[in-house]
């Protein structure tokens, strides 16, 4: 029974478009029809056949329904690009909307609504008016949806022409499908309007509930979803609705079932009788379970929703935990969701069985799933105190298998278990210590170190164990460094012997002098002060009893949960986010494709903080999330102004005196990011940013005097930093009158005063004047100012360098919000930032660019940039011998390809 349409895709030798044109104007009907099919085939594979517009539209006046539909399809696609010609079709549309055949009348109205050309919209009104009152329900149901289409194009027109009233009348239509579509249209219109348009009264409620029994499965979904906005007046009203909706739970269509569940859950809030509620819970369980035998994608949606439902009403599925056991062949996304629900349903009654399952999963192949299973065991231990011991013995069994990631994950959860049940399970510490050498993940390391510090007095060789970690202190990630610091202090307070004392000195030294991490340094100073002034107080602080934790991971806030439950079955319930978090209310711009993408990128929901307004100059706000404490030193300053100047020497490691102010210079340019807000600077506001001009790095800095007096004698000093950047001359700022501001370009030089540790682009700055205390602030620059003019590589040397670097040195990152609209413009833009173009190639529909850049000390970056023109998202791969600079590099690169 199969068709043979593929022949229409074959191309001819002669120019395609002229040939088609000829065929479209053929005198033979069949030939014309074939030609239109070829046009549609060409359109399908993405060829531009808009030039045939007139010829295709000429085929519109036909008795052949199939041909007519094809022409209409063509119109929907191209009317927008040819608005003036589209008007040619109007007459036929109007005529068709009065055709004796209802299929043609409906087709005309349906298609006209899809052509979003203003001129056509005007002509749509009269036919629509007629069709809304058509004798044939098929035409009416199509017209109902058409009102929603029209409202989307021109809301005013819909209201002026009284279509809303006509639509409301259709709710009383005798045909259930017309009712359903009218409801869908009204609900949609209501969504985009602030005025009440579609209010469900008890009268409409009755009508909708009646139509519910008779309309198609999809109509039932429309009606049920619109009912979810109805607020029942009292318990009886609610019970009445629930009674009418409950039979829908038996429907084969999962969307009907979930929408029914949504209504029942909402109305249950009002029902006071516990019997009724219990009974409803009982009725909802089987249909929810049945959803798990649907297609995996539907299972996933169901599981995400069940996750919400069990948070609200744990009793519904309390006895059904077995159905959430994972099948070996379940897709990973189904398994992960099942696991989450199993944790939620685990209870003292079923924990033994659940643990057996978790143990089984912890030995499967998929690493992510295994980790989640191990974590699940820990979460059950924290949740169920009577089962904690059994959970721990399972964890110990898993540790004994000695699979590295299992062990690390187990240690992380055991740390939480210790915090939940202090002084209960410490006997297992010895077993944990056996795995010490294999820990390579920061979180696991940090957890182990925490355990050693917390129980230092019970571990005989705690000092040796900690010491082994201390050797690598400077290279460790911040998370581990912080734990090491705290654990060493704990050890020292518990065992104040010679060994720990030496350790603590080494650590404090490391954490104050050698590090750039302000968090770590702050904590180290606090400990240092505490230990040197009052060791007893230090004990009280550091060894204080900790509050007991509970398992609240993955629990949603009650008000959010209620909002999500009102959105069951929708995207919101799948993402577990309220709709406004991912739906943009802004309407898309006119369909010029490039603009549309820019639009999608901007209005789209993005998880990272905004990247600054001006794409070419990354603002200092970008990426502050990873450097939260940036503001802290500055914030602390006004609180204790006195001791700070004294500390300045050792705190900042400044060797040279502050540079005095000389003659003033002024520059102008785009506004700079604020680094010291006036609230912190007692009226003085400082904005600054590193910039690169003609191969030279400057600190573009501006001062704004918001104090009551004159400020003068400005001096500036930079702390040691990754690149050894220092002031290349004195800061030139004139005395500032109240309300005045001044902006200057301070040339920067590279000194030998380079900080060690992981590279970062953080610049710690101290500024001083004659009237105020010293201000400290952190400025997070971007690596791209360091990209040198000498970064261009020859093609051959690029290739050699690329090959000579091991694959371990290759890193890649997605820039989901980046859009490349033109390759040439991008190349030009990048080379202006000293990222030089080397070669490009095309791979499928993607463009691959090869680029190079270089930062001081001759560190090269070999870049491969993959993107499709006009499509959001780019992939950036980079190879460099100095891999520690890679995160900084990506940070700098992303705003450049905005």
């Amino acid at each position, binding site marked *: 029974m199969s068709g043979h349409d593929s022949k229409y895709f074959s191309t001819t030798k002669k120019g395609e478009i002229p040939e088609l044109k000829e065929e479209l104007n053929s005198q033979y009907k069949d030939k014309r029809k074939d030609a239109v099919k070829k046009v549609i085939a060409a359109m399908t594979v993405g060829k531009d056949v808009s030039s045939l517009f007139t010829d295709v539209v000429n085929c519109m006046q036909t008795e052949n329904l199939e041909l007519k539909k094809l022409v209409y399809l063509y119109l929907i696609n191209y009317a927008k690009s040819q608005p003036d010609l589209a008007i040619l079709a109007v007459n036929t549309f109007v005529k068709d909307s009065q055709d004796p055949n209802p299929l043609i009348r409906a087709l005309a109205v349906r298609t006209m609504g*899809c052509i979003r050309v203003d001129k056509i919209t005007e002509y749509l009104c009269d036919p629509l008016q007629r069709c809304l009152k058509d004798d044939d329900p098929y035409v009416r149901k199509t017209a109902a949806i058409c009102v929603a289409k029209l409202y989307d194009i021109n809301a005013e027109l819909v209201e002026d022409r009284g279509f809303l009233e006509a639509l409301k009348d259709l709710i009383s239509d005798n045909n259930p499908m017309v009712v359903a579509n009218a409801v869908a249209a009204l609900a949609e219109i209501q969504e985009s309007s602030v005025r009440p348009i579609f209010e469900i009264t008890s009268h409409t409620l009755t009508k909708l509930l009646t139509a519910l029994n008779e309309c198609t499965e999809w109509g039932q979904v429309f009606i049920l979803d619109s009912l979810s906005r109805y607020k029942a007046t009292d318990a009886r009203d609610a019970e009445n609705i629930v009674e009418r909706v409950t039979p829908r739970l038996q429907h084969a269509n999962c969307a009907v079932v979930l929408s029914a569940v949504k209504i029942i859950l909402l109305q249950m809030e009002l029902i006071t009788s516990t019997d009724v509620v219990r009974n409803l819970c009982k009725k909802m369980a089987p249909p929810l379970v049945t959803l798990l035998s649907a297609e995996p994608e*539907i299972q996933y949606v169901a599981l995400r929703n069940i996750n919400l439902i069990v948070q609200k009403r744990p009793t519904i599925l309390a006895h059904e935990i077995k159905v959430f056991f994972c099948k*070996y062949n379940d897709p990973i996304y189904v398994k992960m969701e099942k696991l989450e629900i199993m944790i939620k349903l685990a209870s003292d009654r079923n924990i033994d069985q659940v643990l057996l399952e978790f143990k089984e999963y912890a030995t499967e192949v998929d690493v992510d799933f295994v980790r989640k299973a191990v974590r699940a065991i820990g979460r059950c231990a924290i949740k169920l105190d009577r089962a904690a011991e059994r959970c721990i013995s399972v964890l110990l069994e898993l540790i004994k298998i000695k699979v590295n990631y299992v062990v690390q994950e187990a240690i992380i959860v055991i740390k939480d278990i210790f915090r939940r049940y202090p002084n209960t399970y410490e006997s297992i510490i010895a077993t944990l210590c056996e795995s010490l050498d294999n820990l390579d993940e920061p979180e696991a390391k940090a957890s182990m170190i925490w355990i050693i510090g917390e129980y230092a007095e019970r571990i005989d060789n705690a000092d040796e164990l900690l010491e082994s970690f201390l050797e690598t202190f400077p290279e460790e990630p911040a998370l581990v460094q912080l734990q090491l610091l705290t654990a060493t202090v704990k050890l020292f307070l518990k065992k104040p012997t010679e060994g720990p004392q030496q350790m603590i000195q080494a650590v404090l030294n490391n954490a104050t002098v050698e590090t750039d991490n302000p968090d770590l340094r702050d904590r180290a100073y606090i400990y240092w002060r505490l230990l040197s002034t009052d060791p007893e107080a230090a004990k009280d602080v550091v060894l204080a009893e900790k509050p007991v934790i509970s398992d609240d991971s993955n629990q949603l806030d009650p008000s959010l949960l209620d909002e999500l439950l009102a959105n069951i079955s929708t995207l919101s319930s799948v993402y577990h986010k309220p709709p406004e978090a*991912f739906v943009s209310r802004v*309407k898309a711009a006119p369909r010029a*494709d490039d603009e549309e993408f820019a639009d*999608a*990128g901007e209005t789209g929901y993005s998880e990272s903080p905004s990247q600054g307004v001006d794409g070419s100059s990354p603002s200092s706000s970008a990426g502050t999330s990873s450097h939260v404490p940036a503001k802290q030193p500055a914030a602390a300053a006004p609180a204790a102004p006195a001791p700070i100047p004294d500390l300045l020497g050792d705190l900042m490691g400044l060797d040279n005196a502050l540079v005095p102010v000389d003659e003033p210079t002024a520059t102008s340019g785009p506004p700079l990011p604020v680094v010291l807000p006036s609230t912190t600077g007692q009226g003085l506001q400082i904005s600054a940013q590193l910039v690169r001009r003609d191969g030279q790095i400057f600190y573009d800095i501006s001062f704004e005097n918001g104090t009551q007096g004159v400020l003068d004698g400005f001096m500036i000093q930079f702390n040691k930093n990754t690149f050894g950047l220092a002031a290349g001359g004195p800061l030139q700022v004139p005395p500032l009158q109240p309300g005045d501001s001044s902006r200057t370009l301070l040339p920067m030089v590279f000194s030998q005063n380079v900080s060690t540790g992981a590279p970062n682009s953080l610049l710690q700055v101290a500024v001083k004047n004659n009237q105020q205390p010293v201000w400290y602030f952190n400025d997070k620059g971007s690596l791209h100012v360091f990209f040198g003019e000498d970064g261009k590589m020859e093609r051959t040397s690029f290739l050699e360098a690329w090959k000579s670097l091991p694959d371990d040195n290759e890193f890649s990152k997605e820039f989901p919000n980046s859009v490349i609209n033109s390759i040439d413009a991008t190349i030009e833009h990048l080379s202006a930032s000293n990222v030089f173009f080397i070669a490009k190639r095309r791979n499928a529909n993607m463009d691959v660019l090869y680029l190079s850049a270089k930062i001081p000390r001759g560190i090269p970056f070999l870049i491969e940039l993959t993107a499709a023109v*006009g499509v959001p998202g780019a992939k950036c791969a980079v190879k460099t011998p100095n891999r520690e600079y890679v995160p900084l590099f990506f940070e700098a690169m992303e705003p450049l390809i905005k």
Partner: protein
Amino acid sequence: MPVAASAIYFLNLRGDVLINRLYRDDVGGNMVDAFRMHIMQTKELGTCPVRQIGGCSFLYMRISNVYIVIVVSSNANVSCAFKFVVEAVALFKSYFGGTFDEDAIRNNFVLIYELLDEIMDFGYPQNLSPEILKLYITQEGVRSPFSSKPSDKPVPNATLQVTGAVGWRREGLVYKKNEVFLDIVESVNLLMSSKGNVLRCDVTGKILMKCFLSGMPDLKLGLNDKIGLEKEAQLKSRPAKSGKTIELDDVTFHQCVNLTRFNSEKTVSFVPPDGEFELMKYRITEGVNLPFRVLPTIKELGRTRMEINVKVKSVFGAKMFALGVVVKVPVPKQTAKTSFQTTSGKAKYNASIDSLVWKIRKFPGQTEATMSAEVELISTMGEKKLANRPPIQMEFQVPMFTASGLRVRFLKVWEKSGYNTVEWVRYITRAGSYEIRC
């Protein structure tokens, strides 16, 4: 908002657009490029069927060698969208004669465009019943068997049937012989621990119906389920007949079944569509009769040898038999050599799925069969392997057997002309995911 889609794309495995339809203006014309780049060409493919990129959400499913992608930008109804895709594929299959793949799409693109226009309007699913659509959407070469007229003349009351209360059946059908075929098809799912404890076990069954009935018949189906029987007894105020009854955990019905009536009277009454359809689905977890017991023993003899012994017992009636029994026993990747002994059937090593595959064509009830295998492994110095092996999996079908014990008690047909009907009932049980850990 019950909108299900702003656009729908059909892509082949390379990511070429086979056909697409934009229903709403709120997503860009080539959003599909974002899908290709961020999902198809990354490891993300298959890790989650709902993804957000930029301001749009992508919902996708793979069906044979085609990806079907729905794009939305509003808070759409996801279950509605996925169900729409499933139903649309069923519809296309019914039009193309059973297959749905890249070739079928290319060969029928005009028809698909026409159907896509009909089954969804502005993102709202409309009538997707093949039965009704075939009345007025036909193509040369693809004409439904009962339509002898040229496609340009639509059936006069087609539009009424699309929107009618019985939107799944057309009027005026006439058959010389009125027949109904019922197929009760069960799949039994099992997860058994290595010690032989049943961890999870359930049966999902469906009743497939093929109707060749004249006019507008009303049908009523009676099963041996407990609640239905009790209700019936209560209504007729007489004690329920003794005999085996079963408890259904859950049932779902085709849209033709009157749900309100089922809810109040527990009777399954309906006006069936013409031809073949799935009347109902049910699920049972209590009192499942497992057709097979599997007893594996696996011994590791040193680092390079394994001894595998699997005994399978059939526990259904001696007069019945199972067909197409396959037992798959997973073995390590580094398997080098295998040797087998079986009491019936044939076994071999299949390296592509790392399993020993033991096939028995016909397996009578109340018997048992064993396979012993010796497996030699290449010794490896490799990293520590996980203790666990994937479960043993089993396939089979047992005709005239239901794992749930479900029986059709009666099927009554009323039609105003009062004709006689012939009813045929078949039962079959298949393995769903029948897994035994080892």
